[in-house]
């Protein structure tokens, strides 16, 4: 049997390449696979399948398209902590097409993209940032002479799965805000026949993106998602339910204006417009930029940027959320907080109810918002 050696296995090297570098023959490799089959209890008949799996174990190809966007999502991925972007590029994936970082340009990179797509047909992971403008025959975003829609459709056809990274690829984001002058839509509105994961946020936390890629590579499948197509491991909980300032909400301690006494004590930002109670996001847990802080932690209310249509449904950003489930619409949050502080029994009951927002505010005359936007419904759907 092949024994472990001090010879370092270069990450990114296939196992076969690694064995070759150690002077191990094809015959010895097949013997190794046979032994592995026995150890795994699946019988020696499975040997060729194991060999095939090992032979394919090279850095998986990732094609990254940037469509109608601001490059903020790319920048966010550059900020990842673990794996770092350097490790990701050199050791984990083979990033075969990416505008912001690629050395070549023009025809040379288009050729490299075509080569990678054809060599990894049906296997590559497609990452998309940016929306797809559909008005004016798509002429509002043209890349290499072709419309964003054409470029996306071509790359999607050979992809194993698609990561729609950021609010633009998810649902269109800022350019899709009312009145959506260019007819911007998300990936799911154009591509219907591939698994699509929505990494929500404007931008998403870089670590969520790399964690999703690592999940896909480690477990060989996409993570479980909510009704919005967002991975549960990141978007499974409301900000309000994980917030470090939550105790102040429960105690009825609110910032009334910025830089007031409450602000200087780190109290709850609900009264100055925090959308944490209506937002599913990992910000309080993952935090931002090597866990330095996060928006609420730095004193600004949450904008709700992981929720579809937040530019219309969560604005004005400094306006208080209109109602809380279980309480009359007119009931103010401080009243709720006070109630919780006063009666323990009532507090416990209301505490649960207060976390459930059954309705988010919809901006008048917004035509991008689906009729049914119940947070609970869409989340559990």
């Amino acid at each position, binding site marked *: 049997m092949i024994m472990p050696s001090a010879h370092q296995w270069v990450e990114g090297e296939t196992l076969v390449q690694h064995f070759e570098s150690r002077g191990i023959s094809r015959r010895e490799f097949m013997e190794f696979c046979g032994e592995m089959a026995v150890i795994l209890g699946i019988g020696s008949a499975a040997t060729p399948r194991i060999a095939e799996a090992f032979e394919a174990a090279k850095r998986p190809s990732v094609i990254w398209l940037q469509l109608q966007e601001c490059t903020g999502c790319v920048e966010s991925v550059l900020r990842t902590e673990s794996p770092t972007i350097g490790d990701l590029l050199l050791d984990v994936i083979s990033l075969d097409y990416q505008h912001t970082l690629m*050395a070549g340009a023009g025809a040379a990179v*288009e050729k490299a993209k075509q080569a990678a797509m054809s060599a990894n047909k049906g296997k590559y992971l497609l990452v998309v940032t940016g929306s797809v*403008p559909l008005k*004016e025959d798509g002429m509002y975003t*043209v890349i290499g002479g072709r419309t964003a829609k054409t470029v996306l459709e071509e790359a999607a056809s050979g992809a194993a799965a698609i990561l729609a990274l950021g609010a633009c690829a998810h649902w269109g984001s800022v350019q899709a805000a009312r009145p959506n*002058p260019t007819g911007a839509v998300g990936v799911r509105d154009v591509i219907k026949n591939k698994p699509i994961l929505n990494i929500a946020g404007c931008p998403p936390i870089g670590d969520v993106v790399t964690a999703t890629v690592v999940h896909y590579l480690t477990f060989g499948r996409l993570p479980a998602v909510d009704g919005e197509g967002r991975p549960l491991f990141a978007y499974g909980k409301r900000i309000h339910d994980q917030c470090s300032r939550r105790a102040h909400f429960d105690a009825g301690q609110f910032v009334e*204006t910025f830089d007031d006494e409450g602000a200087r004590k780190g109290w709850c930002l609900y009264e100055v417009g925090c959308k944490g109670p209506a937002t599913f996001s990992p910000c309080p847990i993952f935090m931002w930029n090597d866990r330095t802080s996060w*928006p609420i932690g730095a004193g*600004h209310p949450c904008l709700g940027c992981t929720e579809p249509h937040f530019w219309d449904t969560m604005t*004005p950003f400094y306006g208080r959320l209109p109602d809380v489930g279980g309480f009359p619409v007119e009931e103010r949050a401080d009243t709720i907080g006070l109630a919780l502080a006063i009666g323990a029994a009532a507090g416990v009951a209301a505490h649960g109810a207060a976390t459930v927002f059954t309705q988010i505010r919809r901006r008048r005359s917004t035509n991008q918002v689906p009729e049914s936007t119940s947070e609970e419904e869409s989340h559990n759907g």
Partner: protein
Amino acid sequence: MAKTKVVVDPITRIEGHLRIEAQSENGKISKAWATSTQFRGIETIMQGRDPRDAWAFVQRICGVCTTVHAVASCRAVEDALDIKIPANANTIRNLVTGMQFIQDHVIHFYHLHALDWVDVVSALSADPAAAAKIGQSISPWPNNGESELRAVQTRLKKFVGTGQLGIFAGGYWGHPAYKLPPEVNLLAVSHYLEALDWQRNVIRLHTVFGGKNPHPNFLVGGMASAINVDSTATINAERIADLAGMIKHAREFVEQVYWPDLVAIAGFYKDWGAIGGGVPNFLACGEFPEADVRDLDKLYFPRGIILDKDLTKVHEYDQKKVEEYIHSSWYEYAGGGETGLHPYKGETTPKYTGPKAPWTYLQDETKYSWMKSPRYEGKAMQVGPLARMLVAYGSGHKDVRELVGEALGKLNVGPGALFSTLGRTAARGIETVLIARKMETWLGELNGRISNGDTATFTKRRWEPSSWPKKAEGYGYTDAPRGALGHWVQIENEKISRYQCVVPSTWNCSPRDAKGQEGPYEASLADNHPLVDPERPLEILRTIHSFDPCMACGVHVLDAQGREVVEVKVQ
């Protein structure tokens, strides 16, 4: 030799979507065309919204220069509503903006621009001991040792050995225009990787004050991050110590890695000090207010204009002299498209008249871009680090004069070399060094005020819309990493009635005007510009990247009727 038509699309290692077409003959470019191929129309979306929300919307114009539109927007609304922000908030904005410049310029140098000058494949054959010797001769940076450089080379060799070149596939490796010895290439590749780690650390300054990066939070009337040295949830001594560490780390990297690398690499490419000069006029609106933003004498980088490369005279910048042309842009004017319109009378009705996709060539089209052509007194203008440094130099700015002199001395070239592709790249480094040194001063000012009991970060005067005048308008400027930027806002009945931005990339990437004058990208590419192999247009990338294009910023303004609404308030 016949004329060759050249197309480079996509231009990579930039923000956004840019297409360059050119004609080349006998190894030189004779003509060039710059096309912005994306349009988003964000300002249309601003109409009817709460002006206090505007910063968040327009911030999303760009996620690379992720603070600049937010700052300009806050300043515009504060100008309209006559809000003076507390000194601490101004200092915090300078710190945030300063770190944006530092991080953005370093990323630009190593990750967007360096591969135009650095041959990664050549680094494989470097002698790490010799590379360390060079590294240690130009800098005390501790990671320039032989073992560190050998480890980088080993990692690179293994990476290349896998046959999966990833982002390095399709590079122009071995191109004759690459001039660096293998050892310098190895040093640069090592710093390329180090800078990736460095940038994510120093940018945390944005996270301390704004909660995240990209797209940190801002606030009309100040900043939302309260100061209380006795609280765990606010800016306190622990946070300030962390900030001081980031600022130190930023300055060390800039002074010991970025700047020495830039000077060392430039030494091998001195000929690029006579290439790609282009448009001879420069505009800077000024940045880093060290008092109220309206006090133009207290800007660390001054405002002004340089004409015809004449550094002996700095002209005043007067917004009345700006006109926009649509001769080559996919828009129409009601009164005909051949005359320029002052922004007061500006209008934009988008009218796409180009060919259906897929495109082959656009250079035979009269109209070929989504950018308009802004002109100052009828002249095209360059904006960006070079414009800022030239205006400061001409104004007698002590720090700028010293460092420009040092750079010219080290490279043994005259001031004429500044007007070039190399000059733009060098100017970016110069201002980064100056800002990195300033950061400590600004943090010191903040600490000093906190010591004296001044912890205010926000003024609630005019926060409530009921306190606003029925009608108001304001102008917010900022000199962003890529150049002069202005936002104009009009407020009516507590809502935005008009919003407009004039951005750096519109000046630099503007297409030809009615007189046939080229924009800065185009003029630079046709100015003594080589192109040895049209199939491998490395030289085009050098000059275009020296501008650090940010195409998403070049969107145009539409009101609800699809007409551009532009107002310029004379300062």
